[in-house]
């Protein structure tokens, strides 16, 4: 009996569009989701980075008003993307039991890097300015980082488990890895997995700025995020969510589900090298990639493409390519979606997993936006300028996070 894990549903809301199709077409055609961030607080604190990749579609335009007011923005985007993925997988609205998924065999795993930070800040302002009475009784469920997973789990009546990996910018990818494990160990038939983030706020922008990690190309927002370009100067903060429906292949076949591709294997590791900086030797990252290939039963030669984590920071981008060289070689063709999307932190890995699956399925790799002069330290061929048609046997999506978390996901065709 097949123990494979297939992907049957995709959902996303990103700076490029309010759904997967618009986001994917935006990536393929080289659109940018980055724009000037002209807020009162950017001016007040004279933040060095005055640009961001904000959602293309406001969540409050999609969700009913009362539901929106009970959810932090990161929970709102998780709910929107999860509903899209659930429906895309052929399930009807509401709980899975209506579609033959036993609640005890359905899990939800949604990670976030930061969680409901804006709720925490807003409610603290209310406490300071007006006292206890005005603090919302929903404060804790809105700010807790397991909130996105918990709300989606509640809606779908998922009872095999509801989990929330928190590993900074690897959170979304780690959710898929966790889902793969649950399906492979037989703990669930269906797992709704992904990542959500919505933390564009003064304090996060200030904190990242003080860590000197953000682009300050404020005069040219659309060209600010430029992975691997010699003139890259940091990432651009973004927001959004990506969610996929994973299933045991047998289960998906039995219900006649359409299959996008397979999550063939996963690999996770930790650098334990520095709290924010990646190991420049790429050892930990390479171990994660190697583990993904091994668990997928794939050889280095099988991997034709790596959808990279590359965030447009001077150190990280090249370090990753060193890890790819160690674990796979110089032959995989690279792309970095963050040139167009900005950095969606805990949602990034999930949105990029969707892009990787679609690259395999449709045989096309989107370009790395703004790559004009590739860093000479990169050995691999990078797709830039325009999308490239390819025939892929397998591809890998990398995600790494502050804290030294490394996740690699290996995908194959349906």
């Amino acid at each position, binding site marked *: 009996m097949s123990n494979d894990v297939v992907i049957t549903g995709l959902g996303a809301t990103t700076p490029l569009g309010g759904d997967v199709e618009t986001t994917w077409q935006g990536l393929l055609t080289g659109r940018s989701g980055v724009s000037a961030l002209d807020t009162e607080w950017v001016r007040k604190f004279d933040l060095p980075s005055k640009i961001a990749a904000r959602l293309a579609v406001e969540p409050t335009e999609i969700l*009913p*008003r*009362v*539901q929106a007011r009970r959810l932090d923005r990161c929970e709102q985007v998780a709910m929107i993307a999860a509903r899209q993925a659930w429906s895309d997988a052929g399930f009807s609205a509401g709980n899975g039991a209506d579609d033959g998924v036993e609640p005890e065999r359905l899990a939800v795993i949604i990670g976030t890097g930061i969680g409901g930070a804006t709720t925490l800040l807003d409610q603290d302002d209310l406490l300071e300015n007006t006292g206890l*009475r*005005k603090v*919302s*009784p*929903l404060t804790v*469920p809105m700010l807790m980082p397991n909130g996105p997973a918990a709300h989606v789990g509640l809606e779908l009546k998922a009872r095999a488990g509801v989990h929330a990996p928190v590993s900074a910018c690897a959170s979304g990818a780690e959710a898929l890895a966790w889902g793969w494990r649950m399906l492979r160990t037989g703990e669930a038939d269906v797992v709704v997995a992904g990542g959500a983030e919505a933390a564009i706020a003064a304090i996060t922008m200030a904190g990242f700025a003080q860590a000197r990690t953000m682009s300050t190309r404020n005069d040219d927002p659309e060209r600010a995020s430029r992975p691997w370009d010699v003139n890259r100067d940091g990432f651009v903060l973004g927001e959004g969510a990506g969610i996929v429906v994973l299933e045991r292949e047998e289960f998906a076949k039995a219900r006649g589900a359409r299959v996008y591709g397979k999550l063939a294997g996963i690999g996770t590791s930790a650098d334990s090298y520095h709290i924010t900086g990646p190991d420049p030797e790429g050892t930990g990252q390479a171990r994660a990639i190697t583990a993904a290939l091994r668990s997928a039963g794939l050889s280095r030669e099988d991997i034709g493409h790596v959808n990279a984590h590359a965030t447009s920071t001077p150190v990280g981008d090249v370090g990753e390519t060193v890890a790819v060289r160690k674990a796979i070689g110089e032959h995989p063709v690279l792309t970095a979606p963050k040139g167009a999307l900005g950095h969606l932190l805990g949602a990034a890995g999930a949105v990029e997993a969707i892009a990787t699956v679609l690259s395999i399925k449709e045989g096309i790799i989107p370009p790395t936006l703004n790559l004009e002069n590739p860093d000479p330290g990169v050995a691999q061929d990078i797709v830039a300028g325009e999308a490239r048609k390819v025939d892929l046997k397998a591809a890998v999506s990398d995600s790494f996070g502050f804290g030294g978390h490394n996740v690699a996901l290996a995908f194959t065709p349906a």
Partner: protein
Amino acid sequence: MAEKEEILSGLAEIVEEVAGVAQDDVTAEKSFVDDLDIDSLSMVEIAVQAEDKFGVKIPDDELANLKTVGDAVNYVAANAK
């Protein structure tokens, strides 16, 4: 009696704002929990807004006794300043 109608109407506005229940459905005999599907978290929000709107105090032990919309209307009518 007119006063109670005003209170009911004001309360219905709050319930709609907080919980999304149509104002017409907020009638005296309805139970907040069983009929209107309002959870304990939303009840706290409704109580705080009612306190502001009607100038009453609704201590937690009183709030626990307000099972129906009518209970709340009567409590406000009896305690409003």
